[in-house]
């Protein structure tokens, strides 16, 4: 075990001279830049976000497990039609947004922008549907574990949809700047895509847990 650094060192020393020279050349400029790692970092951030939702989902399942009855007696039935439509809209919007990446890779900035605007509209419809659903419900955040978990989970997800809409609007605004997004460099587009797919995935789990699996 202990020999490993020595072994590896031998490997390094044995590296072909050309490679060394190449490295030398690459580092000749003192202020060279490292590659763009923002997408890597953003993905790690989403891992953390996912764990937050995992925590809340597991808490929800635990509450259901300890409750003598679920949904508790006297809780009105949850209406499924509206959230189902919302689900279709959100899932579809993920596919719509996906087109934006193809567009930007072809250098088609107006096209990319159009896909973004379409997705923003679908996100807004989703949020409006959610708000409408809230106004129709006969229970509140304070209605026991059922109301509490329902509003915290959907509310928290809704907040993420809102943030997604804002992120996408930011991309639209920036896309008017010349050369801001190029076929090679378009971190904002990629990040907004990733985030939106994430929010979409969370919703699917949430929809199944809250509305479907009884």
């Amino acid at each position, binding site marked *: 075990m202990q020999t490993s650094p020595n072994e*590896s*060192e031998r490997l390094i020393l044995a590296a072909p001279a050309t490679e060394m020279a190449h*490295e030398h050349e690459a580092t000749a400029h003192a202020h060279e830049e*490292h590659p763009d790692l923002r997408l890597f970092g953003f993905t790690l951030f989403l891992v953390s*976000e996912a*764990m*937050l939702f995992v925590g809340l989902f597991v808490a929800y399942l635990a509450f259901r497990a*300890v409750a003598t009855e679920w949904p508790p007696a006297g809780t009105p039935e949850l209406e499924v039609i509206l959230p189902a439509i919302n689900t279709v809209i959100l899932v579809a919007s993920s596919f719509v947004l996906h087109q934006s990446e193809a567009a930007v890779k072809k250098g088609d900035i107006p096209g990319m922008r159009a896909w973004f605007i379409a997705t923003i509209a679908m996100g807004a419809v989703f949020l409006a549907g959610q708000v409408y659903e809230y106004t129709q419900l006969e229970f509140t*955040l*304070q209605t026991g574990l059922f109301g509490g978990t329902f509003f915290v989970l959907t509310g928290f997800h809704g907040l993420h949809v809102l943030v997604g809409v804002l992120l996408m609007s930011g991309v639209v605004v920036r896309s008017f700047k010349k050369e801001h997004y190029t076929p090679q460099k378009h971190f904002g587009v990629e990040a907004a895509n990733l985030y939106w797919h994430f929010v979409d995935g969370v919703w699917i789990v949430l929809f199944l847990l809250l509305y479907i699996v009884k």
Partner: protein
Amino acid sequence: MAFPRINAVAFWMIPPAAVLLMSSFFFGPAQAGWTSYPPLSMDPATLIGQSLWLSSVILLGTSSILGAINFVTTIWEMRVPSMGIWQMPLFVWAMFATSIIILVATPVLTGALLLLSFDLLMGTVFFNPTGGGDPVLYQHMFWFYSHPAVYIMILPGMGLVSEILPVYARKPIFGYRAIAISSMSIAVLGFIVWAHHMFTSGTPEWMRMFFMITSMIIAVPTGIKVFSWVATVWGGKLRLTPAMLFAMGFVSMFVVGGLSGVMLASVPIDIHVTDTYFVVAHLHYVLFGGSVFAVYAGVYHWFPKMTGRFLNEWWGKVHFYSTFIGFNLCFLPMHKLGLLGMPRRVAAYDASFLDLNVLVSTGGFLLGVSTLPFLGNVIYSWLKGPRATGNPWEGLTLEWTTPSPPPVENFERLPVLTVGPYDYGHAGRDPSEIVRH
């Protein structure tokens, strides 16, 4: 750093979090301990203070997540091209493992604290048994983070010691890969031991068994590290500088804490001594004898690198010996107090515990006094200490190839490694020839 600006954001979240935490004292202070268990934390009398506490901890958690993103990205993507993962210094391995724990565990704590805040401020009943809620669930969520959190506190210390021991023993680290892999396996295993803090929370029998076994298993990678450190020092040409003394103090004191940890992991023993001073003794041997000793060792080792000046070695030894004696005087008797049944978190105690408590208090005061030579040394040496060269300890890791203190950009050109981080004691190698430019 991959994302310097995010690093700054993470850093500057800490002062406001501190203000929130401290301001809690002025508004019916939070007094539910660091665990903040409901229903204790839901006392209406401490509502504002507790809420401030919660917001502070959520902010701190977010700050550490941002920091962890930075560390993982930097370590994974930005090593110099000639450094593969098996040439990374062990401290870097330790920070990598720590950052992964932070990324995965912290959000779950955030979730628990958010739900608790809702209970406090919005009238929900998640953890309120009178409304059908489940206070034990809070404990699960809390410890899902807070057991891994003890590794967040100790893994960097283990990394520091793995750096420091070889330098002053003039020997290659023993079991480089074993230490690196054990850091990663501690990070992973650390996620399945949390309920050992809940053996007396009405935890079902199967769960107790499961968590007892996993907790004992996690002592194995920990033990591998300890044996590797001992083997590293064994037969070496030891230079007993303050850094080395603290590093060896770390190893020996951490072993004591690890042993009491394994005792606590055993359900029958834990049921007897949970919530007594035995637990307080355990956590101080791992956190003070462990983490704090490692930080001291790190300060003595890297002070010349950070400031360009040496700390005074004689005062450093005074600091070490007074800390070591004060520490053991303070915390060793707590084992016995706990076994005799003295409860933790209670200010008053039975008269029969008096004698041992006198020892504890004496040790406590000595420990307090022991910080004075350290603080004095740091302040004086920073201003007036003798100048240090770039590599005063003849270390082989990259930081020692820079001048002391390092220039803003660290390296003018990316260095090319020619020596592994721990290749000490090989004939014919000049320690100043670590890299090729």
